[in-house]
């Protein structure tokens, strides 16, 4: 009797579920076309917005994301009257309240033609202002948050609160959108073959971290770090009128969920003469690229403990990346001190 009762209840529940599902199927059928059309229309409008003069868009698979959290949904080559105008990418990646979807256009001359926010689930009134056409980060020029990227060079730093104006009280949203834009900018400029997409400018050469040297050349001995996971890519030695004044090294290691690459210079007396954070592929790590962060290391002794919270300040919102980069700088500096002590450079 009891078993019969259970089966009966199960059947009743099944009937309700089936009726509910059938009803949903009908609604889904009637709305799915409209929803798909709307999304397609949004996409086309977005593409047209970032490339107003384009006559058509051809899908391309040349553009690939190097970061696993940032997904390129679809990429297009924008066709102009006389050849390709550039690349537009629909991209999504994590933000404060879920994934944010953007369309980013990059022209063949290496500037961003425009950014359009397709979807953003962040806090209404705060992060959601990224998609608000009436929210201006610069009220004087009526520039919206995504609007400020138009005209930016793909080689720019893309650091929020420096060359990117943040949305008030929505730093995380601002940063994640900036990261998405930068990821597309990098990938698109690689695909377009724009020179300087991986900028090796003067500011990245070893002379920037060894200001006292007048000649810098690759070292005959390569510095090796004793810290596991830290790989030193290149070692240079700096001399001034024939005397060795210091050495520098470029090193790479795992940071938080990506890699960090740093350039460190150490003088013969074991003082850090300069640090540059060249790259950080952590999902929210780009703030540590700010020169202010790297500047903190200058003048510190390489053998002194370098720690976030004691003598090095973390970049807010990127504590883990700051920590990873600090450990990398320390390991590199230690390796350089050893090489300098060993002589025979």
């Amino acid at each position, binding site marked *: 009797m009891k078993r019969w009762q259970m089966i009966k209840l199960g059947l009743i529940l099944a009937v309700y579920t089936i009726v509910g599902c059938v009803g949903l199927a009908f609604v889904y059928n009637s709305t799915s076309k409209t*929803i798909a059309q709307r999304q397609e229309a949004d996409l086309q409008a977005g593409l047209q917005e970032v490339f107003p003069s384009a006559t058509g868009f051809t899908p391309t698979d040349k553009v690939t994301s190097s970061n696993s959290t940032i997904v390129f949904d679809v990429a297009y080559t924008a066709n102009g009257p006389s050849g390709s105008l550039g690349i537009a990418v629909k991209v999504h990646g994590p933000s404060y309240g879920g994934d944010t979807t953007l369309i980013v256009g990059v022209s063949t001359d290496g500037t961003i033609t425009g950014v359009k926010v397709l979807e953003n689930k962040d806090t209404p*009134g705060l992060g959601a202002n990224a998609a608000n056409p009436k929210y201006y980060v610069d009220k004087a020029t009526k520039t919206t948050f995504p609007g400020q990227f138009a005209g930016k060079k793909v080689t720019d730093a893309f650091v929020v609160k420096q060359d990117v104006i943040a949305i008030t009280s929505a730093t995380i949203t601002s940063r994640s959108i900036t990261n998405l834009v930068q990821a597309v900018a990098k990938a698109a400029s690689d695909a377009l073959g724009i020179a300087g997409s991986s900028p090796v400018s003067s500011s990245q050469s070893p002379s920037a971290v060894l200001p006292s040297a007048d000649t810098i050349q690759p070292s005959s001995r390569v510095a090796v770090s004793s810290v596991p996971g830290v790989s030193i890519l290149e070692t240079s030695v700096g001399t001034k009128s024939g005397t060795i004044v210091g050495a520098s090294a470029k090193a790479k290691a795992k940071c938080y969920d990506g890699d960090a690459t740093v350039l460190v210079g150490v003088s013969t007396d074991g003082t850090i003469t300069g640090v540059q954070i060249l790259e950080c592929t952590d999902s929210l790590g780009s703030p540590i690229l700010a020169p202010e962060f790297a500047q903190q290391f200058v003048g510190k002794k390489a053998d002194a403990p370098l720690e976030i919270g004691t003598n090095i300040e973390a970049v807010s919102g990127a504590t883990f990346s700051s920590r990873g980069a600090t450990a990398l700088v320390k390991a590199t500096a230690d390796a350089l001190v050893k090489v300098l002590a060993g002589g025979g450079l």
Partner: protein
Amino acid sequence: MKRLLGVFVNGLIVENPLFIIMIGLCSSMAVTTTVANGIGMGVALTFVLVMSELIISLFRNLIPESIRMPIFLIVIAAFTTIMDLEMQAYFPVLSKSMGVFIPLVVVNCIIMGRVEAYSSKQPVLDSIFDGLGMGLGYTWVLIALSVVRELLGNGTLLGFQIMPASFSPMIFFILPPGGFLVFSLWMAASNNLRRKMLAGKKPEPTQDSCCTLPENGSAEKA
């Protein structure tokens, strides 16, 4: 007719879901940063509430007591999904700006509470009016909250600039603490009004409290 009006007003003020019963508060804090969102959420919830109450009241004699909760949930979830799809298709802007709160209507306590306490025991017409009353009771509170929060926190109403350009928006009101403050002030004002409304009547409110006593509603008493 007077009886139905009583049921309607009950949800609107006397037993307002947010100010008196105090259920469904999370979404009301979260979406009321702009008036448009407040209205959208209110209408969305009213739709789901009325439809769920209608269906469950209609089938109330065919729902076995022991599995009523899963059945309520199936009905509520179905209507929420329907509304979510319809909004995506026909009100994409609103749907985008409210994001995750639309699917979360499923777990809004107001719906479960009213279905369990009211429509599973009351006739269809009463249930519809209860759904309308409760839904609009929820909606007007959302609008009241969001008007204050959007005006002070952003200087706009429904996206139009209201405050003079010299006004510097008080972000505090958009952030969660501002939501609590505005909510409590409105609740104080509303409860004061309610007390005055009920002062002329018998000291005992016309309604039993929603979720504790099975005998509910002016329906039987009127």
